């Protein structure tokens, strides 16, 4: 597969915020999935000028590949500093791929209460879903080889950047 040009992730955060803005309700809260989704959620909170704190979710305890891969070596504490009961939530992740992380995150969220609505916002949708899950807000749809991993990271300058690792 020829090398693809990777877009500016920071500019995509702005695009994603623009997609979300018309759908915001006064009590909407963001929940970022560790770690890429947490960074994106942090950007969105600022861009959308949301007053409250964002939630952070580590889905390690809810993953369905725990039997094969074990516990993630760097589990981070989840922090949901608001009552999710009856709230509209937007779940934020960097990449939507098989949908299994989203499934785990929804399971995790429901252990905190029963939200009114859960929507999904991602920076990139790379297809090849294995579950009936789709993004409500997404600025970038990209086709990649299954052996390629799309990675969001922050550099020393704190800037979000895309890279691709090939596991072929």
């Amino acid at each position, binding site marked *: 597969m020829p090398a693809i040009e990777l877009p500016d992730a920071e500019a995509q955060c702005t695009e994603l915020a623009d997609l979300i803005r018309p759908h915001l309700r006064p009590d909407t809260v963001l929940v970022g999935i560790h770690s890429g989704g947490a960074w994106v959620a942090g950007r969105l909170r600022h861009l959308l000028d949301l007053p409250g704190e964002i939630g952070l979710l*580590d889905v*390690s*305890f*809810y993953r369905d590949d*725990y*039997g094969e*891969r*074990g*516990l993630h*070596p*760097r*589990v*981070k*504490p*989840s*922090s949901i500093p608001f009552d999710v009961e009856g709230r509209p939530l937007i779940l934020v992740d960097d990449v939507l791929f098989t949908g299994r992380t989203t499934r785990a995150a929804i*399971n*995790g969220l429901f*252990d*905190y*209460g029963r939200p009114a609505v859960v929507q999904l916002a991602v920076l990139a949708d790379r297809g090849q879903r294995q579950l009936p899950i789709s993004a409500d807000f997404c600025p970038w749809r990209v086709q990649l080889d299954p052996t390629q991993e799309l990675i969001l990271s922050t550099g020393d300058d704190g800037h979000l950047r895309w890279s691709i690792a090939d596991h072929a």
Partner: protein
Amino acid sequence: MRNPQLNTNGELTHLLSIEGLPREVIIHILDTASSFLKVSAREVKKVPLLRGKSVFNVFFENSTRTRTTFEIAAKRLSADVINLDVTRSSTAKGETLLDTVDNLVAMHADMFVVRHAASGAPHLIAEHLRRLGKDSVHVINAGDGRHAHPTQGLLDMYTIRHYKKDFSHLVVAVVGDILHSRVARSDLHALLTLGVAEVRVIGPQTLLPTAVAAMGVRVCHDLATGLRDCDVVIMLRLQNERMNGALLPSAHEYFSCYGLTPQVLALARPDAIVMHPGPMNRGVEIDSDVADGPQAVILPQVTFGIAVRMAVMGILTGN
């Protein structure tokens, strides 16, 4: 020599002792425990990590509290927990330890939490499982003889890190019956592995192992001298059965020499924390004014213990 706690990939597969555990494994357990601590504070105190797994608490020696904390930890991970009081059943009928284990393996046990009066019993079980090729069955030592009580050692380290953040500048004293204490042994190995500045053991000559100084700890026979400028004071339970032998004159005399009172605690640093693995003997090793005072972190230790045991179970079952 092969480390019996690690699998061929170098991952933790049994928890038998703190001795020989790499520093990064200990840190990984403590880091993971901090995530589990948040689970216990939620409305739904459960995650599905060990759903469908069977955890057998096999206690050849009585301990309601330790068994209960393991049971709570396993249940918060959604495991099915089976408590066996083997002292009153199979062992009393003459069954050997390994026959008991074989029977439970035949019932598709995924994890054994073992307490035994004989040092080395959990290791024996782990080696037996390895010979059977049962690599997916894990063993946690919940206290064996005078040897080790690794989850207590880990929860003590979690407690120290919670209050003191960094280990490298700390002076930590372990006070009491070091000789018979598996908790003391696990704490000493953990403290030395984590690189605290100074570890002191304080107790009467009769209750200290003869070669304990060779571990790299400072030995004190005087409580006041030993506590000076300490950041952490770990009190040990004085087991009543020790009173009957020639090791100690009386509980009253022990308290007057080694009991932790507010007066003697004042010699430690003003922000020193006081820990105790429980159950406490008030008026024997610790004064009620200290046990209930602002420096005691004995009940937080219990809360952290659940999270640490969840972390150990979660990590082992995944490896």
